[in-house]
């Protein structure tokens, strides 16, 4: 007579609530892991193929400053100016939903042929980057100064546009639009559109007289402005700015060595990528902020970088979320036992196409 009908009623009521607490914990141990070993060889051949195409296009470029016919010629003129002239630029960067950020950018070639460059964030505590040939030193508030080996300063203007525009031809089409007036000067407008219409587009304006970049817009697929770089003042000089004479290269921090991470086996592959996008990196590591283990691949067409993360579902977000972070898209989807996250400056549709194209690969036979 101990088994009372009320006790039964109570356990029945409790069982209604218990699923709420239990369902969050699904049972899975780890991601399937296996290695695709031939991908490195594949990448190498792709790189060779790319350098071939660059060589073919190079002879077409001559110094015809007066009669530039193609957008590529305009960009090559910009490229040679950027790397060989002494100049000083002031520009502002405006991003949707953010305050405008002003920069000062100087470049010079010293008498001994050393290339020097400076980029300074002009508001707030600032951020200063100084490049002497192949070493970039970074001075930031709250961080020890450090140096890295790089031939470019990583600023708001995409380096590939300034230094290697030919590399973009595989993914993007350059169109000469016409003349316009920017920053008080006559300029040539060029549109940069992805060949498969899967990435954001760009518009840039180049000074007709000097070839210098005057304005750069980043637009979404509907043509709405996402980000803008507007040069407000620039001067091309005969000799490098006196600022560079004050830099003592021996007082700059030593470049830090980058440990090349070991690429461990991944049990998945991305099957869809926009035209011209290639894998540039893969590894397995812990996120700095949460310590979660992620499998990571980075894809790039030179202009935009897309990160793909795969995590076990139990320590991931556990839901489908799409966000816009400044101009980057953040998309995370559940895929069976894994959570796939795609991040990058790409439209949401493209991020979704990449995320849903991921499939498990099982190459345990090799």
């Amino acid at each position, binding site marked *: 007579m*101990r088994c*009372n009908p*009320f*006790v039964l009623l*109570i356990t029945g*009521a409790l069982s209604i*609530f218990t699923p709420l607490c239990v369902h969050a914990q699904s049972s899975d141990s780890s991601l399937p892991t296996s290695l695709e070993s031939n991908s490195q060889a594949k990448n190498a051949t792709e*790189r060779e193929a790319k*350098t071939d195409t660059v060589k073919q296009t190079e002879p077409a470029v001559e110094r015809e400053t007066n009669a530039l016919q193609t957008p590529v010629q305009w960009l090559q003129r910009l490229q040679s100016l950027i790397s060989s002239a002494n100049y000083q630029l002031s520009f502002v960067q405006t991003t949707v939903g953010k305050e405008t950020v002003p920069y000062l950018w100087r470049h010079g070639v010293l008498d001994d042929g050393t290339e020097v460059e400076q980029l300074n964030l002009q508001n707030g505590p600032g951020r200063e980057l100084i490049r002497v040939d*192949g070493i970039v030193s970074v001075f930031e508030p709250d961080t020890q100064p450090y140096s*890295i*080996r*790089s*031939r*470019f300063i*990583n600023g708001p203007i995409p*380096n590939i546009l300034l230094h290697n525009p030919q590399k973009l031809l595989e993914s993007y089409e350059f169109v000469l639009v016409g003349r316009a007036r920017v920053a008080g000067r006559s300029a040539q407008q060029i549109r940069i559109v992805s060949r498969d219409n899967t990435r954001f587009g760009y518009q840039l304006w180049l000074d007709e007289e000097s070839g210098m970049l005057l304005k750069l817009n980043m637009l979404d697929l509907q043509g709405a402005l996402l980000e803008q770089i507007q040069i407000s003042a620039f001067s091309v000089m005969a000799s490098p700015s006196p600022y560079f004479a004050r830099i003592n290269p021996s007082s700059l921090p030593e470049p830090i060595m*980058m440990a*090349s991470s070991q690429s461990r086996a991944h049990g998945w592959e991305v099957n869809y990528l926009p035209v011209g996008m290639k894998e*540039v*990196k893969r590894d397995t590591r812990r*996120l*700095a*902020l*949460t310590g*979660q283990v*992620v499998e*990571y691949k*980075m894809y*790039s067409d030179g202009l935009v*970088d897309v*990160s793909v*993360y795969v995590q076990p579902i139990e320590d*991931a*977000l556990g*839901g489908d*979320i799409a*966000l816009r*972070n400044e101009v*980057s898209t*953040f998309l*995370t989807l559940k895929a069976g036992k894994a959570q796939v*996250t795609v*991040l*990058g400056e790409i439209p949401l549709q493209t991020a979704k196409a990449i995320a849903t194209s991921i499939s498990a690969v099982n190459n345990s036979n090799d």
Partner: protein
Amino acid sequence: MTQQQEKLSAFMDGEAEDDKIIDAIKHDAELQAKWQRYHVIRGTMRKEASVAPEMDITANIAAALADEPAIVAPKESRWRSIPIIGNVVPFATQSGQFAVAASVALAVILGVQHLNQPAPSEPFMTAPTAGPQGGLAPVSLEQTRTLPRNDMNEVLEKKRKINALIADHEQQIKLKQVQAEEEEKASDDTNRP
């Protein structure tokens, strides 16, 4: 028997008309067991159960008290000073050691109720005369109170995870530039000779 059950139920709710039920409980082992079960059930329904239904501690306490009656047996005034338990005091004072032991067990259960609920006024629903009065209401109230707090933690946790991914993505882009540089340099060196 059913009449006594009814009275017991009424006594539990503090609605007893006379003290006869107390004597009845004292002398009837079955009623005592029922008294104890009712309290366990009530505690469970209100999600306050601190005692498993089959764990009858009263007998153990009674045995323990039989060994040291002088220490545990409380003075009347002390019991009266504690609200709620004051209702039980006559039960403890009028009877012998067994009654004291039983009231200690009650104090455990009622004490928990006192902590969680200042006004335990819901009638126990065994008596058909009492009628439905929404006895489960406190349970659902408790649910609505705790759920939003869990949600907040979840949202914060999600934000933290999203931020971790975004920060990592930005860091990787910075690192990529350097690595691409080094690779290019390496391939340049191999192409040159």
